[in-house]
């Protein structure tokens, strides 16, 4: 069955004619620092042939013998044209120079390297690199890609100042966030006010909102593929910044010039230092730190090793009464091997860990709650350039998940009995293949599929649960036994058709299966939100997404207009039962309800890509609903992330050599919430009566931010700049929560209280590099 499927997928390959092809291959790097360039464009002049560099900067293009002009280009780089007389396979490594920004009119941005592109069949993707967003103002002046992508269509913020995102009506846990291929289970620091991604360590972020390529899998709504910098292999350097909240330092340099390099970046907040100065708050703790490190080493012409790691931790404590800490740690070892000019291989061994610990101390009670999720992942990926019309990618992946769902322990005098929930073990496996077929100048077809499987392994208690959520019976499975196996075939199909050289239309269908689930009952990011694996009770979530897009370059690529529409249906989505106990339970599974979801919308974006003024306007009109047995009388209701309108306006203006100004404005319909429609008294207490789930709206959200960057000094060796920003310029009090309570002075009356977080948050930071 599997073999048959793979055969049918690649049937397009067989149709190709038999003329002998030769290959041009190599890697594309930045001349300045030797960093490999992802998504650089390789175009054959006066033809429709072309390709892009992969995530390691490698490219390969097969052509019939002849003489060709090859144009190499990338965002922010000066293009390079090479003439090649192709009579045998050619290896050509290219180093591109930085584009000269002072001559703005010369700056060329390739339409292929930016995320949304007219060419190809890939749709539903947004791509951002750090230089592109460095001038966009952000809260606390902390450059943050996870926050900046919220200004793009179809990606909505989970809340004010929050790094959590909702993509196309999906929940936050339906985003796969990977850093150098390692899963980041909680991408938030300090409840989401910061993301785990230190922008000094990050090269590039790609967000797939739909039409995920077959090598990705495991989440319903998006893939956020974050890539770390490799480190400068030309010159050693030190950089850093001092802000109001945090300080950063990074060191990078060559180990062997042109061949290998390292990068270490570290960041720590120091708000707690100020807290300590106040006698009242000196016993409180509130900080986070993180560390990124990467090492790459060329073993030979055909082999390269990359070792990268991330470690981050948040600590929050009040008077030793409550202390909580949480953090991610990841490690990735990758081996690139070039079998020949057409076949590129990457093997990865990946480790990922997320855990939290919560300690409560009151009176004689010392209670500790602990939970952890760990992954071991082995992945093999092949990229094979078959000929000038077909590019094949295939591979497999095995992930071993170990979850410690919840462990509560107390000291001898505490009121609780220790309770260690049994560890959960599982295997998440996949094989995939995908072929990009370009039969002619205008048509581009990607046919792919991913076959995913999940084995729930024994090693503890498994439960049967009745419809009220009570445990009916318990079965114990041995460690080596498979409790349950799930299997899903996930087709990934997309078609792009160029109407003319500047305009194209695309369509795609994607199915995704999700085996790891996070259940949350808070809006923002709560570090204590739990991850649960698919089990005998929790079924894999499945989504089917259909999308349709229109792409156009206007006025010689100065402007880009894109529109995408999508319809997504989701099965087996989860929510908490009413009255769920999130911490003190026998099993999380007894606290859950299951149902389905649907989301649809249309996204528009107009982007100005060149000139002194750059920026974009994006608008999303969308709907997201859920239908869960046991909620809202089993009727459809608005998902928490349902927001009808969402508008973002981003502008950056190069005022002079020294000053860059920027501004952004956001507006969105308030999120769907449940307000009471009545009240009554029971046992002397006011109880609110709720009629239907999420039928009300928070007030509309809007905000304007300004930013300015002053380049202080720039020599070959030194660069210093000051970054100013003002978040929420006109001090809009956007609602964070709305609560109902008895009036303090007249408890016989109800008052509605709105809490808002940020008004006028100014910030300044100093960045340096030498």
């Amino acid at each position, binding site marked *: 069955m599997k073999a048959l499927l793979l055969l049918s997928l690649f049937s397009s390959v067989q149709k190709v004619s038999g003329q002998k092809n030769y290959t041009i291959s190599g890697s594309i790097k930045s001349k300045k620092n030797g960093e490999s360039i992802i998504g650089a464009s390789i175009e054959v002049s006066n033809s429709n042939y072309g390709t892009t560099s992969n995530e390691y900067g490698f490219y390969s293009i097969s052509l019939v013998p002849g003489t060709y002009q090859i144009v190499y280009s990338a965002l922010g780089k000066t293009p390079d044209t090479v003439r090649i007389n192709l009579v045998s396979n050619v290896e050509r490594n290219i180093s591109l120079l930085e584009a000269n920004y002072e001559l703005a009119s010369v700056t060329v941005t390739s339409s292929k390297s930016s995320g949304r592109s007219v060419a190809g069949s890939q749709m539903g993707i947004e791509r951002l690199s750090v230089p592109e967003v460095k001038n966009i103002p952000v809260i606390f002046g902390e450059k943050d890609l996870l926050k900046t992508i919220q200004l793009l269509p179809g990606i909505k913020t989970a809340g004010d100042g929050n790094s959590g995102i909702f993509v196309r009506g999906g929940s936050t846990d339906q985003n796969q966030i990977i850093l150098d291929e390692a899963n980041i289970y909680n991408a938030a620091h300090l409840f989401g006010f910061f993301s785990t991604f230190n922008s000094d360590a990050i090269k590039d972020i790609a967000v797939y909102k739909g039409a995920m390529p077959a090598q990705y899998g495991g989440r319903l709504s998006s893939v956020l593929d974050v890539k770390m910098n490799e480190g400068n292999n030309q010159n050693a350097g030190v950089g850093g910044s001092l802000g109001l909240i945090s300080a950063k330092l990074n060191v990078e340099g060559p180990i062997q010039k042109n061949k290998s390099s390292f990068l270490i970046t570290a960041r720590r907040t120091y708000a707690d230092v100020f807290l300590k100065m*106040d006698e009242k708050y000196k016993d409180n703790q509130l900080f986070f730190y993180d560390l990124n490190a990467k090492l790459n080493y060329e073993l030979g012409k055909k082999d390269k090793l990359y070792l990268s790691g991330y470690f981050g931790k948040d600590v929050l404590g009040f008077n030793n009464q409550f202390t909580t800490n949480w953090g991610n740690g990841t490690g990735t070892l990758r081996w690139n091997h070039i079998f020949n000019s057409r076949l590129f291989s990457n093997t990865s061994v990946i480790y990922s860990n997320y855990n939290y610990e919560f300690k409560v101390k009151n009176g004689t009670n010392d209670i500790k709650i602990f939970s952890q999720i760990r992954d071991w992942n082995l992945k093999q990926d092949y990229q094979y350039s078959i000929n000038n019309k077909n590019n094949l990618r295939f591979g497999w992946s095995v992930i071993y998940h170990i979850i410690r769902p919840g462990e509560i322990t107390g000291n001898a005098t505490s009121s609780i009995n220790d309770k260690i929930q049994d560890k959960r073990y599982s295997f998440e496996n996949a094989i995939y293949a995908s072929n990009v077929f370009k039969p002619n100048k205008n048509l581009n077809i990607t046919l792919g599929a991913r076959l995913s499987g999940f084995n729930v392994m024994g090693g503890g208690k498994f439960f049967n649960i009745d419809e009220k959520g009570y445990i009916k019976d318990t079965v114990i499975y041995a460690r080596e036994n498979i409790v349950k196996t799930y299997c899903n075939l996930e087709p990934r199909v997309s078609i792009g058709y160029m109407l003319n050289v500047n305009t194209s239309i695309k369509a795609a269908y994607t199915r995704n299966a999700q085996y790891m689930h996070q259940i949350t009952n808070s809006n923002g990011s709560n570090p204590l939100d739990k991850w649960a694996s698919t089990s005998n009770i929790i079924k894999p979530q499945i989504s089917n997404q259909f999308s349709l897009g229109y792409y156009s370059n206007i006025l010689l690529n100065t402007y880009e207009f894109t529109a995408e529409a999508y319809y997504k249906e989701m099965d087996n989505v989860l929510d908490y039962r009413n009255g769920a106990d999130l911490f003190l339970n026998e099993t999380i599974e007894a606290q859950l309800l299951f149902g389905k979801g649907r989301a649809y919308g249309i996204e528009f974006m107009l982007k100005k890509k060149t000139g002194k003024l750059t920026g974009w306007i994006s608008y999303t009109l969308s709907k997201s609903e859920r239908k869960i047995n046991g909620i809202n009388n089993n009727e459809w209701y608005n998902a928490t992330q349902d927001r009808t309108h969402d508008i973002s306006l981003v502008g950056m203006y190069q005022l002079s050599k020294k000053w860059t100004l920027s501004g952004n404005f956001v507006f969105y319909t308030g999120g769907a919430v449940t307000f009471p429609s009545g009240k009554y008294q029971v046992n002397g207490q006011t109880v609110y009566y709720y009629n239907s789930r999420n039928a009300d709206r928070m007030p509309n959200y809007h905000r304007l931010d300004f930013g300015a960057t002053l380049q202080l000094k720039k020599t070959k060796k030194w660069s210093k700049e000051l970054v100013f920003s003002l978040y929420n310029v006109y001090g809009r009090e956007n609602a964070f929560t709305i609560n109902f309570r008895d009036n303090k002075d007249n408890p016989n009356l109800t008052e509605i209280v709105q809490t808002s977080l940020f008004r006028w948050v100014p910030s300044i930071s100093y960045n340096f590099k030498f």
Partner: protein
Amino acid sequence: MKKINSIIHIAILVFALSGCEKVIDLDLNTTTPVIVIDGQVTNSSTIGSIVKLSYTNKVKSDNSIVPLPGATVTIQEDNGTIYSLPEEANGIYRNESLVGITGKTYHLKVVTNGVTLTSSSKMPAMVNFDSLVVEDFPIFGKTVKVVTPFYNDPKGFGNNYNLFMFKNGRLIKDAFAYDDLFIDGKTVTFPLINSREEDELKKGDFIEVVMNCIDYDNYKYWFSFSQSSTGSPQAVPDNPISNIKGKAIGIFGANTYQKRSVVIP
């Protein structure tokens, strides 16, 4: 432990130092009034058995009860005696001679305007409320006084508790509901921490704590109430899980009743 989410919540507000509160007005949906049952059988001869019937009111009206008068209210003990609860005041039905007995199940029946509403609750074994102790509790840069009830949970699952606190005779609006999944057989010493600043305990305050031993359905009601229905919910807002059968909301419980008091030193 249910406070964990509220702690996270407070921490967010503390972190966002500029966080500010303001009273606003909203257009709210209203629903046709729904019947509310607030009934209990206790083992206390002073409290007896009381069932309050009312209707839900508009959120923007005052908190006074909209009574439901003229109903027929009866409570049957196991399969035996049926006690009737005459209407003592508008919407308040009471029978002082119905004193509940541990281990017996009480069946409530309310008939009003042709609608029949029923519920049942079994009075659990009474766990002795040993003492009430005042303790210091440091929180956010200051130390406040809290009261801690002490009791010994008997070995074996199935004990559930609900505690209410009164300060100088006035109810502090909070529910403290516990099951014994994690405290089975232990000496329980969880302090009752108020969520509102104005309820802070001061020297000389007279504090009374009522401990009800309740059945599991009552525990679910009060736990879900504390999570979802207080107006500043920890979880997604929803109605507490009711044990009333028929078109009504609320709770009926056969609860043991004990009260301890202490003066804040």
